[in-house]
């Protein structure tokens, strides 16, 4: 059916900041949707609060709003833009919920906006537990039985009716806390009592346990003519009980019979029809009892999801693009399959490889969080790998997630040695068994230990319920490892000596050179030479949607060990862009944005772009972002293989964050041409000693510092420069293991931690500048001309990681004098390092002095934000500069100072880690960012707070408790709050200071000393905002309790005095005038000169 003509303008809602559970996948689907709609001639309006996305690039949509995602703002945009339809299925749960509430509040009806892609009815049916239950019962599909109890008696009745085992979940308890599994009547009674008490609303969900069942997912699409296709099946390696976003997943499903498969397909068709999706896609999750095949439905997502992004990358089918076309009335047979160019989208893709998805966790960032996986998602990122068998895909997957592992163990990094495993005592066996049976981020490695310690498949299955088929594949790797070890060298200098066939088999099963070198006790480069000489060179195979049946046009490759290479590299001039790998704290969508821009720039310059990345969520791994895409791990071996096949003129390492930067030196040593700033300069910036020499040479200032390897050295340095000091490892990302240390005792502890992270690299000790203002500067250079992109001022004081700090562009408190000093320093650094491409410098300003904290000769996290605020695509220009263009020719020679103000605020995953302290420090903890943009600082700041999810109050009660040194500053804040009509509550210390200044505040007792205390008031909803600055480096326990409770009850909070100041000024502004909305295109309209 032809596309709908009654619709002209479509509003697309993005998913907002990157948080656990909602990451780049929605930038990927949203960008595809924008492109698909424009292709069909519709006008598009886009709203998203996340400035780091490709979708918010001006040019993706006709009108782009970077504004908070809430009903108020969306209503304003709808009133202003008057779209005919809203497409809510691409913005994750956020987009879907917003559309639902816009409908509920009558906004859609008032402005005559239709929800396309998923009707409001369909959303309600999938999201409302009762409607869903009823719908599934009507088509005869089981859901896990459950009931809600408010008393033990009620719970006992429900539980006994359902039968054991039972899962108990107290309502409104964060992250599944207070949940339990009851196996018998006695346990049920005990857990019910505990759970009802733990729940703030004294409710508990009693549910049939499907723990250990197989978890099977399908990606389903349906058009308005009722054509239904299955894009792919997926099987979770981790069975039910682990959130699918945390599970290892394979595609296609590996252990289903054709009959079971047909049943699932049949159920999927019934479900998508019943839910009523008639122009879009859905993800359907099932649980299946492995002992009898019984199936229950777990969930339906009537929208694009993380799984659909994975399915797209796994099969080559652009689900978001197709779903968008279906939403505007086209049918599947009318939408071409762009990969084959011959078939249509009415086709079920089939694969001739195995896809493996594995998650990246960051428990190391939250040392007090329990290191277990359950039904509340904790992964911050994921990697996908492709192989011709499961073993190869798994080993590639493990080395893709960048946890410094090079495969399924056997890489010299195993915590438990073979020797220990051979002679394992019962304590060790118990430890291993525990780690196999309770899901955690290291379970795979513990399965290996279990296999090596002699546990049988059946034993491991009984502990983990991971299907024996997967376990046996792991066992095969362990057996192979043993076989390879027979050929171990006596001396590491010896030539590796391994039979050709065994080597070929090992490579085919995904063993990396690092693993082989370890097992053979040989040098990695010698192993590399050996298999290059023999026939075990990797070849590249196509992801073609059809298992070879049609000749694919899209060059999308994975490596494997086979006989024929399908890469067919072109003779064109080409450049390889190294991506950032899996998202993690410190490295995420911002870098993917830059990589995409590199590809766009190369296209404009007529150079073929070759993308290497392994993150299935991203736009960079979309099939049409680059000319050629290699879905591969970002390790030296995997990248060198691609370079040898493609023979590019150079490699771009500046854009993928720290991952490619860390590879720059070894790539250069292997003779690879690194484009842009030389790897020599990269090394100067990363190596503290060389860096210090440069700073001295340029006559610039740096906090006193030293480079050390041991605690003794550290102590000496710290005594010399004086406490407090900042301790950090070199060559790391996001301030990993970075700490402010006030005395020798703590120094010892952190040196130990830092040396674990740093490895062979030294540890850095800097003088910590208390209460300094931090500044971030982004710069672009071509070796001759250097231009500052933006100077950003941190809102929090020094000591908060720049990735976590809120920032303002332009600066808002610095004097012209200081700004001049910053500019001068930045330009002299750029000239000295001969920057070709991008550079980021971090400064601290204290007592009118400008100190240099850090120089990164690469794209920084703020590049997308700066680009959007000043209206200049910095990453694109940087790419062109790296190819030899000059900034002069590109028309960008002068710093642009925006007339409007943009504030970046960070978003944190604290709600996933119950009980952790929300205090900010030098170690980065945020997963994403939002931007508030407006005419003045206060409005922009308050927008950023609202966008970050803070429910900014206009009245009510504020609790204030601050550290002694903040007490003077808090007076004006408290006064203003009082003047604005807020009631103040305070701790006794803070209250007495306020009292002395004639600001009345109600004193609340310490948590242990009386009730009602602050926790009680928060629980009762009587506190609308909390200002609490930490009392010292080791926070008092009641402070931690207060700060973790604000997360539980979603109460706006600030933990820094500067943040509090900005917030209160913002509230004042917010009370005076409503938020207004303005598109990026409007902000940039005034600009005269055109940047090429």
């Amino acid at each position, binding site marked *: 059916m032809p596309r709908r003509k009654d619709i002209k303008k479509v509003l697309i809602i993005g998913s907002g900041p990157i948080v656990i559970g909602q990451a780049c996948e929605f930038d990927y689907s949203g960008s595809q949707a924008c492109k698909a709609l424009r292709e069909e001639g519709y006008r598009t309006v886009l709203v998203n609060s996340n400035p780091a996305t490709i979708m918010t690039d001006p040019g993706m949509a006709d009108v782009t709003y970077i504004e908070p995602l809430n009903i108020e703002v969306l209503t304003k945009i709808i009133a202003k833009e008057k779209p005919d339809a809203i497409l809510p299925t691409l913005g994750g749960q956020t987009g879907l919920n917003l559309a639902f509430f816009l409908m509920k509040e009558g906004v859609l009806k008032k402005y005559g906006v239709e929800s396309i892609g998923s009707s409001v009815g369909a959303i309600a049916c999938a999201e409302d537990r009762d409607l869903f239950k009823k719908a599934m019962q009507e088509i005869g599909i089981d859901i896990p039985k459950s009931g809600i109890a408010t008393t033990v008696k009620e719970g006992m009745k429900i539980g006994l009716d359902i039968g054991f085992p039972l899962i108990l979940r107290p309502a409104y308890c964060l992250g599944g806390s207070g949940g339990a599994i009851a196996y018998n009547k006695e346990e049920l009674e005990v857990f019910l009592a505990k759970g009802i008490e733990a729940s703030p609303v004294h409710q508990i969900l009693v549910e049939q346990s499907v723990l250990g069942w197989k978890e099977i997912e399908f990606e389903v699409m349906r058009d308005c003519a009722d054509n239904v296709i299955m894009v792919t099946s997926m099987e979770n390696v981790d069975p039910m009980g682990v959130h699918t976003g945390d599970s290892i997943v394979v595609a296609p499903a590996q252990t289903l019979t054709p009959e079971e498969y047909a049943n699932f397909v049949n159920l999927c068709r019934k479900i998508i029809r019943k839910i009523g999706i008639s122009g879009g896609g859905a993800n359907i999750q099932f649980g299946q009892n492995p002992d009898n095949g019984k199936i229950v439905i777990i969930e339906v997502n009537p929208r694009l999801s993380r799984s659909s992004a994975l399915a797209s990358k796994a099969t080559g089918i652009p689900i978001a693009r197709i779903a968008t076309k279906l939403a505007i009335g086209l049918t*599947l047979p009318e939408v071409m399959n762009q990969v084959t160019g011959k078939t249509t989208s009415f086709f079920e893709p089939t694969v001739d490889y195995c896809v493996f998805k594995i998650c990246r966790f960051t428990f190391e960032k939250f040392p007090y969080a329990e290191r277990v996986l359950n039904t509340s998602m904790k992964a911050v990122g994921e990697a996908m790998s492709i192989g011709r*068998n499961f073993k190869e895909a798994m080993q590639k997957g493990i080395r893709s997630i960048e946890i410094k592992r090079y495969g399924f163990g056997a890489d010299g990094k195993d915590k438990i040695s073979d020797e220990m495993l051979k002679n394992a005592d019962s304590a060790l066996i118990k430890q291993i068994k525990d780690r196999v049976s309770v899901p955690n981020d290291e379970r795979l490695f513990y399965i290996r230990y279990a296999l090596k310690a002699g546990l049988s498949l059946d034993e491991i299955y009984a502990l983990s319920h991971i299907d024996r088929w997967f376990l046996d594949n792991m066992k095969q790797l362990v057996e192979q490892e043993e076989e390879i070890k027979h050929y171990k060298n006596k001396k590491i200098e010896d030539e590796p000596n391994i039979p050709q066939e065994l080597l070929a088999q090992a490579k085919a099963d995904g063993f990396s050179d690092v693993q082989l070198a370890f097992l053979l006790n040989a040098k990695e480069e010698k192993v590399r030479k050996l298999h290059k000489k023999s026939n075990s060179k990797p070849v590249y195979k196509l992801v073609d949607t059809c298992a070879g049946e049609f000749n694919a046009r899209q060059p999308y490759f994975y490596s494997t060990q086979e006989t024929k290479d399908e890469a067919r590299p072109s003779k064109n001039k080409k450049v390889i862009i190294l991506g950032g790998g899996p998202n993690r704290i410190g490295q995420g969508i911002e870098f993917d944005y830059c990589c995409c821009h590199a590809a766009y720039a190369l296209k404009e310059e007529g150079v073929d772009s070759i993308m290497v990345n392994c993150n299935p969520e991203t736009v960079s791994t979309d099939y049409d972002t680059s000319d050629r895409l290699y879905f591969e791990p970002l390790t030296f071996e995997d990248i060198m293989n691609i370079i040898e096949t493609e023979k590019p003129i150079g490699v771009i390492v500046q854009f993928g964050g720290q991952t490619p930067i860390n590879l720059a030196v070894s790539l250069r040593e292997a003779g690879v041409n690194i484009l842009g700033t030389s790897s020599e300069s990269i090394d100067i910036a990363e190596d503290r000693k060389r860096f210090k020499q440069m700073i001295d040479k340029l006559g610039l200032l740096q906090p006193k510092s030293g480079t050390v390897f041991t605690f003794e050295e550290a102590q000496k340095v710290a005594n010399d420069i004086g406490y407090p000091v900042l301790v950090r490892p070199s060559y790391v990302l996001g301030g990993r293991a970075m700490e402010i240390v006030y005395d020798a005792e703590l120094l010892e502890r952190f040196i130990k931690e830092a040396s674990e992270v740093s490895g062979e690299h030294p540890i850095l000790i800097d003088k910590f500048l208390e209460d300094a203002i931090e500044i971030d500067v982004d710069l672009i250079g071509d070796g001759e001309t250097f231009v500052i992109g933006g100077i950003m001022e941190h809102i929090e004081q020094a000591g908060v990681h720049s990735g976590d700090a809120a920032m303002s562009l332009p600066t808002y408190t610095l004097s012209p004098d200081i700004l001049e000093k910053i500019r001068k320093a930045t330009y002299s650094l750029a000239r000295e390092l001969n920057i070709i491409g991008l550079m980021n410098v971090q400064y601290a300003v204290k007592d009118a002095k400008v100190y240099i904290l850090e120089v990164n000769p690469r794209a920084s996290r703020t590049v997308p934000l700066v680009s959007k605020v000043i209206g200049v695509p910095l990453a694109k220009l940087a790419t062109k500069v790296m190819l030899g263009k000059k900034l002069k020719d590109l028309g960008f020679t002068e710093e642009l100072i925006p007339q409007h103000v943009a504030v970046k605020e960070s978003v944190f995953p604290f709600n996933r880690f119950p009980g952790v302290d929300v205090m900010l420090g030098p170690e980065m903890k945020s997963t994403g960012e939002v931007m508030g943009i407006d005419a003045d600082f206060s409005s922009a700041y308050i927008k950023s707070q609202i966008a970050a999810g803070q429910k900014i109050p206009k009245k009510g009660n504020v609790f204030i408790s601050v550290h002694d040194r903040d007490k003077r500053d808090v007076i004006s804040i408290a006064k203003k709050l009082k003047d604005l009509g807020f009631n103040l509550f305070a701790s006794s210390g803070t209250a007495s200071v306020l009292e002395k200044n004639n600001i009345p505040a109600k004193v609340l007792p310490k948590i242990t000393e009386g009730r009602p205390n602050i926790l009680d008031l928060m629980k009762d909803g009587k506190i609308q905002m909390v200002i609490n600055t930490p009392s010292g480096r080791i926070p008092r326990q009641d402070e931690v309790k207060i700060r973790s409770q604000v997360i539980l009850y979603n109460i706006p909070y600030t933990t820094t005095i500067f943040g509090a100041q900005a917030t209160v000024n913002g509230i004042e502004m917010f009370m005076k005038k409503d938020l207004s909305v303005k598109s990026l295109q409007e902000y940039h309209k005034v600009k005269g000169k055109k940047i090429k």
Partner: protein
Amino acid sequence: MKAILVLEDGKSFNANSDLNSECFGEVILNTAVVGYQEMITDPANAGKILVLTYPLIGNYGTAPKFNESLKVWVSGLVVKETSRIYSNFQAKSGLSDFLKEKNAFAIRGLDTRTLAVHLREKGPLWGIISTKTLDVKKLVEKINQIKKQPEQSLLPEISVPKQKILGKGEKLAVLDIGVTNGLLKQLETLGYSLNIFPYNASARQILSVNPKGIVISSGPENDPGLKQVALNIKPLIGKLPMIGIATGCQVLASALGVGLIRLKLGHRGVNYPLARTGSFKGEITVQNHGCVMDYDALCKVKGLKVTAYNLNDHTPEEIESKSLKLIGVQYNPVSAGFDQVNPILVKFKKLLGDKCAKA
């Protein structure tokens, strides 16, 4: 032991095998991810060397209930990797043991992707698998020799030796040119008793049991015995409602004077889109054929309509004639799980004048 697959154009692939043997046949691809047991026991694949493009085979084992017939009919099975264990609660034995028990020849460990792309580019090729000699030249010669010999019909071996009756209910005649258990099960679910006739049954023999309608099963394409089958059933056309399935459909076409056209690469897999003329609603179907009915010739048959075609290459997949009371489907009308019946069989039931509760 070491094995080799050699194609008639001289291209060869090294592999491994558990059995010391040699086999010969047309090399065909199937792109389905699951269904190996059904494929190798489907008589429609008799005499073929079957290459599975999905690389991991045997994961869920085998069970007698998934057999399409009692025998393994393919002359050789070619896979990338066989699973050494099987994991599914329904499985009774692993694929390797199953093959051993049926004395079936399989090879593994070769680059099936490259083989698939080669066949796509070169069109239908014959091949030989051997463990006896790895000499490519000799084996190519052998292919040429065997190809020269007249082809023997497999129908006598495949078909029931004499009439067989299954189930209770109104009578339906099933002409067995390679019928699968899957089809029989669906027909039984529809509520019919089935008179299964050998491939060479005459029209008179079929009419003698007074069936309500006739089903011509699927079976091996291009078998030399099929010509006679077409002649045998020709007198029945228009007399009784009839459905031809896959090769059975080709037999019907041939009885109507419609020829076959060979495809460069057969349709073999579970993901083929079907479009219906004059409708946006199609269907994803299972297909397993290397030839298609000649569209132009079909158009010339009076009262006959092509009701559906393959959306990828627009070849005819479904024919219907009200006046001749017949339906023909080139695809395999498989069940959508457990007790489900494919819509075309439901349609056939309507053609027989029976009401359908299940439709």
